């Protein structure tokens, strides 16, 4: 057997990168066309604003500050996308990341505002709550053969209303929002370790940002380098073979969902324990963070490292949309454009398949002409 070098275009990572970039380009193009249709006068400027995001500010300090804000929201998105891609690698579709994120938020906010616990306990509570909810879906799948998508969707709603009920206890009397962390329990705010200083004193930039990147690396190590990852992936790829070689496939299923849930729950702690957002106890829609995680996971080519960049990009676009000239376009335009791009992200796998098919056809045309 002669060893052959795989052509660059055949390399999986390169393919993912190309496909992701293509999705982004098409998404931006479609967004631009939509803007043109609504109001041709400002379309070019608006799309530039979205791409530039914090760069629209001329002062460096302001730029840094708003870059910080984007990063603050990137951390939870990255955790949600890790949750989804981790489960996906093990053959499960964790659409429940949204619900696990919700219970994570409920647990950490209640521990902070109701019980006045320090930040690390609140953080652990969020992780455990997410893991527990994930494990429920895992158990339903393992023992009752309930499809995880069904159980997750139902659990998403159960979680939302349970958390709304729980957090009503720590709600401001005159508004639907929970108390602010800084006024009620400052000890629950994640430490910044001077990171805020780097971003023009943006107090919301905390250890959550580097922590989420570390989590991505850990997920990669877990999946690619460890015995546990080997077992979990084997179970996901072929549960019969996993059983045949003596792996406990039921345990593995539950463990996978628990880890995925823990990641999403941690994501919630990374946002709500910064004090950046308060929980609105009357909300009747599951927060989009968990669902956007799906887009981020796919845009990142289902790689934990790719997810770091894709999560940032999606958050960048979403935040950038806020700066679009509201006199020309309605306030929802930013959501619309980012939704378009996120929607296109789902096509990453499609483009990879198409690319491979094209390469195959090219090779076949070459025929016996050589390798």
């Amino acid at each position, binding site marked *: 057997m002669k060893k052959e070098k795989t052509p660059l275009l055949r390399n999986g990572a390169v393919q993912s990168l190309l496909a992701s970039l293509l999705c982004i380009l098409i998404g931006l193009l479609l967004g631009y066309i939509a803007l043109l249709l609504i109001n041709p006068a400002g379309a070019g400027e608006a799309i530039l604003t979205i791409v530039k995001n914090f760069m629209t500010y001329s002062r460096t300090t302001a730029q840094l500050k708003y870059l910080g804000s984007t990063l603050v929201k990137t951390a939870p998105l990255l955790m949600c996308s890790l949750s989804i891609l981790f489960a996906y690698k093990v053959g499960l579709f964790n659409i429940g990341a949204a619900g696990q994120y919700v219970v994570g938020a409920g647990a950490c906010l209640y521990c902070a505002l109701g019980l006045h616990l320090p930040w690390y306990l609140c953080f652990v509570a969020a992780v455990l709550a997410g893991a527990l909810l994930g494990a429920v879906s895992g158990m339903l799948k393992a023992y009752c053969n309930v499809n995880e998508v069904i159980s997750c969707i139902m659990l998403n709603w159960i979680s939302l209303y349970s958390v709304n009920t729980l957090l009503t206890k720590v709600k401001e009397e005159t508004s639907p929002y929970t108390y602010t962390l800084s006024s009620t329990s400052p000890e629950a705010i994640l430490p910044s370790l001077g990171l805020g200083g780097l971003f023009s004193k943006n107090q919301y930039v905390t250890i959550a940002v580097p922590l989420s990147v570390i989590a991505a690396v850990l997920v990669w190590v877990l999946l690619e380098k460890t015995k546990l990852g080997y077992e979990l992936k*084997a179970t996901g790829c*072929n549960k019969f073979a996993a059983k045949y070689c*003596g792996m406990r496939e039921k345990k593995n299923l539950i463990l996978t969902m628990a880890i995925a849930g823990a990641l999403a729950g941690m994501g919630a702690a990374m946002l709500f324990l910064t004090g950046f957002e308060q929980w609105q106890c009357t909300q009747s829609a599951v927060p989009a963070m968990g669902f956007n995680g799906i887009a981020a996971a796919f845009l990142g080519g289902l790689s934990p490292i790719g997810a770091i960049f894709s999560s940032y990009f999606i958050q960048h676009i979403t935040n950038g949309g806020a700066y679009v000239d509201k006199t020309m376009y309605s306030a929802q335009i930013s959501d619309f454009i980012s939704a378009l791009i996120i929607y296109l992200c789902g096509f990453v796998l499609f483009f990879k398949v198409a690319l491979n098919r094209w390469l195959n056809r090219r090779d076949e045309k*070459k025929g016996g002409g050589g390798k």
Partner: protein
Amino acid sequence: MEENYAIEMLNITKRFPGIVANDNITLQLKKGEIHALLGENGAGKSTLMSVLFGLYQPEEGSIRKNGQPVSIRDPNDANALGIGMVHQHFKLVECFTVLDNIIMGVEPCKYGFLQKAEAREKVLALSEKYGLKVDPDALVEDITVGMQQRTEILKMLYRENEILIFDEPTAVLTPQEINELMQIMRNLSAEGKSILFISHKLGEIMAVANRCSVLRKGKYMGTVSIAETSQEELSRMMVGRDVSFAVEKAPAKPGEVVLDVKGMTVASKRHNNNAVKDVSFQVRRGEIVCIAGIDGNGQTELVYGLTGLEPLKAGTLTLNGQDITRAPIRKRSVSGMSHIPEDRHKHGLVLDYTLEDNMVLQRYFEHHFVTPAGFLKRRAIREYAVGLIEQYDVRSGQGPVTPARSMSGGNQQKAIIAREIDKDPELLIAVQPTRGLDVGAIEYIHKQIVAQRDAGKGVLLVSLELDEVMNVSDRILVMCEGEIVGEFDPKKVTVEELGLYMAGAKREGAAS
């Protein structure tokens, strides 16, 4: 004089990157003849058939029907020309009835409503004419493999196909069913149908075919008339060297008992009855015990019960003096049980894993391959896999990092056998280890199994192939309807005798 050919494939050449799958191959099928196409796995039989069905376009060569050049761009063109095929893996809808499967795609309709009564008449008439016994109203999932195959044949006849291709049709049948199929094929050819019979079983080709074309490594080796050839000549044409059909082995020297099964009962997943009923037997060191039987008579469940994939309803299992009746799968495996599974894609391999990751599937947790902290020792895994690949001659495109999915069936099986034998088991359970493999690979695997026996291991071989049963085993247990109905010495029993026991026509009175 111009001969009367139903279909001709002339000088077909099909290239793939790096390989010539079909190199100037000519295949001429006469009207009303049974023409065998013989070749090992990878010889180019499938590619040639894909060309005939329009799935591939050849670089060179032409196809003619009744002397007229035709162009086959896709399978619909092939259907229109009256070419039909019974695939090795049947293409039936399990939850449909036989009748529904037969008419699928060509349903007789009136105003959008199905006219099943008419179709039923036609199917019954056809099955009468050709001696194809089927129950048109039975669900496909409930009928035997043989009847499923007859359903496939009826599908072709219903479409009034003239050229019938059988792809390895006997792989899944019992000796009696094989005889029936041969008769059906003769009936079909007597009625003027032209049959192309793809096989690598020489005995069957000798029994039923008129002529035989042989392929080897993509090249056309020639066409011979069966009346003027012998099995030995055919096999030399196919493999390129002499192959020994008989497995060479010394007499067995059975030692102590390694597996003791008492009163084993396993529930069935298909029906309420038990699949394995109160079965008791022993396997000793240094002997090959073979479970023979028709597919679906409890052999699968027996193996599941032994290996721990299914729980026992009753009975005890003792491995090497250790009670393993309730032991989990991993415990049985590390206590010295190796299992070459029946379905290598379902159980034997994680197809999306690389070859090296599949090689350590039974050992990845040993401290040789994993650190105490739970990290895989990639270098140790690579070295181990490379060692096995060399020792057992497992061939693949990219060595240890080849995705298992992209390997040929024979090499996948070799990989599993390497993995299971290298575990150094006390008991080797091999279920249909040579299913779907070519002569060369079968010879190799049989040698490995005998070597295990000679090394003092106990071997339990479950096989549906009577040739294998007779050649390899030291002792034969026949299973029928979940029970062991007889025990035989392969030297003192005939295939016909075994067949009667397998079909349930005879059974040993008080024995076992």
